[in-house]
């Protein structure tokens, strides 16, 4: 039996400091600072304590593209970012469209032992959008898949989308849609805008996202099924989702850190590190997404962590792969974006950017709500005695300067290289055991 651990003087949800005692995999007690003892002490003086973060949207690349990321390296990156659970997207090779593949991913996650790796099952065979994958077999497998997505590709056929939404009701699954009309985005390279016109890059119009979301919320309402919208990127999409929620439609939505921080202006460098799908949008879209995160229209922040080897970014724009790293920078960005005062979130970082951080909201957006959407029972639990001890402990007194080479991910395609982000992850507890201590893997 493992020894007891004392997390000393941390501030749950940014509130008054307490001592948290962990025995086995659970929180045993929460006590006044200085009153508790344990076999091992982790100093959390001045730190914010959050429920371990849960990412609903991660690309771990294994099996098939282990030169970009592995379940092990991705688990390490996740732990260092404060996560205790990630959902591994299905666009691997082979595609995670059978019970065999999802069980392989799930088992490898357990072997790595740093986070819960929850496989996402493909909606359609081979992500080809033609025939439903064996959703029931994946749900009934040891991996107990509950989230299904063809992420990277849109389930575009409206009848197939309807059937998928209906079918997963049998096991309380959710379809996570990558909303992108393929015909409206053929060859698309960046947000369609004045800038795309000037740069001569084929545009990815907002309507290609918004029209699919509009269709899907109506389908979800019609079938009474749960819909989750991946990486919402436009102000118009926010409006559609806000309307759907006002009508009581069963939809949840996510925004990525990069869509909450970065704008399309970066594309004018033609540096493919800024190439991502959906693309970076206008400042007005960023503002709308931030407002939607704060008012609850957007339910969660999810990373869309998308590692790519150097050769896939060290090239001309059109040839480059789409995607950005996100696991190790997500919390720092959230800390400056999710604030009680809407105007204080600054895009340039800095330590005082976190004075007004709304930690209760971050716990909801990055742990409680994604655990609920993904049906992960052991995650997103409140910080109280009896809960599974999944904890992220964050030090607001320091700053982190991002460098692609220093990240644990096997790839280096971070758009934030050189950025100074507020704070740093100090310790992480995964099921009662330290996965990160003093900013390094335990």
């Amino acid at each position: 039996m493992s020894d007891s651990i004392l997390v000393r003087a941390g501030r749950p949800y940014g509130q008054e400091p307490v001592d948290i005692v962990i025995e086995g995999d659970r929180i045993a007690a929460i006590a006044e600072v200085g009153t508790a003892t344990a076999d091992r002490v982790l100093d959390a003086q001045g730190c914010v304590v959050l429920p371990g973060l849960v990412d609903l949207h991660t690309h771990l690349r294994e099996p098939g593209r282990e030169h970009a990321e592995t379940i092990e390296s991705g688990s390490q990156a996740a732990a260092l970012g404060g996560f205790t659970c990630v959902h591994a997207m299905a666009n691997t090779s082979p595609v995670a469209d059978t019970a065999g593949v999802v069980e392989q991913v799930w088992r490898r996650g357990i072997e790595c032992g740093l986070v819960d790796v929850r496989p996402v099952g493909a909606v359609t065979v081979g992500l080809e959008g033609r025939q439903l994958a064996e959703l029931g077999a994946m749900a009934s497998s040891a991996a107990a898949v509950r989230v299904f997505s063809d992420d990277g590709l849109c389930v575009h056929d409206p009848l197939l989308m309807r059937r998928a939404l209906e079918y997963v009701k049998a096991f309380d699954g959710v379809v996570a849609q990558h909303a992108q009309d393929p015909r409206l985005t053929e060859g698309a390279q960046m947000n369609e805008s004045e800038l795309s016109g000037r740069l001569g890059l084929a545009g990815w119009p907002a309507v290609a996202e918004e029209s699919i979301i509009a269709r899907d919320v109506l389908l979800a309402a019609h079938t009474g099924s749960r819909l989750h919208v991946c990486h919402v990127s436009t102000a118009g999409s926010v409006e559609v989702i806000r309307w759907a929620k006002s009508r009581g439609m069963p939809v949840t939505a996510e925004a990525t850190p990069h869509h909450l921080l970065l704008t399309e202006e970066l594309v004018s460098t033609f540096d493919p590190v800024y190439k991502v799908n959906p693309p970076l949008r206008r400042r007005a879209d960023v503002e709308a997404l931030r407002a939607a995160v704060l008012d609850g229209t957007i339910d969660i922040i999810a990373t869309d962590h998308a590692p790519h080897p150097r050769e896939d970014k060290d090239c001309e724009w059109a040839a480059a792969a789409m995607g950005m790293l996100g696991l190790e920078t997500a919390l720092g960005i959230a800390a400056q974006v999710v604030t009680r005062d809407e105007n204080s979130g600054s895009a340039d970082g800095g330590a005082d950017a976190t004075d007004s951080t709304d930690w209760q909201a971050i716990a909801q957006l990055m742990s409680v709500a994604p655990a609920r959407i993904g049906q992960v029972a052991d995650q997103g639990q409140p910080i109280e005695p009896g809960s599974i001890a999944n904890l992220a402990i964050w030090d607001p007194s320091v700053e982190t300067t991002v460098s692609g080479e220093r990240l644990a991910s096997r790839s280096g395609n971070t758009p934030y290289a050189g950025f100074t982000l507020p704070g740093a992850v100090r310790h992480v507890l995964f099921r009662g055991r330290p996965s990160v201590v003093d900013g390094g893997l335990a």
Partner: protein
Amino acid sequence: MIGRHLLSAQDLTSADAVRILDTAGELATVTDRSVKKLPTLRGRTVVTLFFEDSTRTRISFELAAKRLSADVINFAAKGSSLSKGESLKDTALTLEAMGADAVIIRHGASGAPYRLANAGWIQGSVINAGDGTHEHPTQALLDAFTLRNHLRAGSGDLAGARVAIVGDILHSRVARSNVALLRTLGAQVTVVAPPTLLPYGVHTWPCDVSYDIDDVLPHVDAVMMLRVQAERMAGSYFPNELEYSRRYGLDSRRMALMPDEAIVLHPGPMNRGVEISAEVADSPRAVVVEQVTNGVHVRMAVLYLLLGGRPEELMVEGADR
């Protein structure tokens, strides 16, 4: 003062552009002599790196470099990294290892010359010879040179000149570079196209926009007709060539709407019978062949200025004019 690279017409100030055009004018008189070569770039290595076939642009640059006595290497990179060939980076590193002083790049991907210039792969000058649907700055310079010869007696800028650019603006690097450069030189530009072939946000460009060529032609000093590619039909940009030609093609009837002195430009290659009728293409008002000649002089001027030639030197070389 123009910098180390020529990537975009938008990077040129009016003074830069006039200087290039003036230099091209000087070089034109020099190369009218029986001995057409200048020793200016002797010992310098210039590479034409073409990922897309474009014989006319490549030989124009090649001739320009040779007339300045540079060593010229033609590197026809068949396909790009998009088609699993050697990557742009490895090609660039190879050229750097061979000591290229300038790389003239034509690439199907918008922004490829920016990567070449800014990714730290090479040290030499980069000249954009056309990147995707982005820019083609030397084409804009040769067009400006041609316009200036006809409309402004070959000197100064193009203040007040009225120029229409007609055709597939959306996919045209020639249009983007021309709108920027002609505007910088003081011209009033109108782009004319069916709405499907205008880029999103064209109303923010420094030009007027029209869907109706017949409205515009009576008020221009020059019209530039762009090539329209048949494959655009597949993308539903217009119903068919015949309808396009009827609504936007320049034929004798339409040319008669233009003021008497107005000229017709085309960057080539022309689709006779589509955007331009044979009668117009062969008429004395069409300056298409002159554009080709001017292209060599303008490209000489760009190489000359980027690779450190000095105007004084040029004046001595060309003293017998």
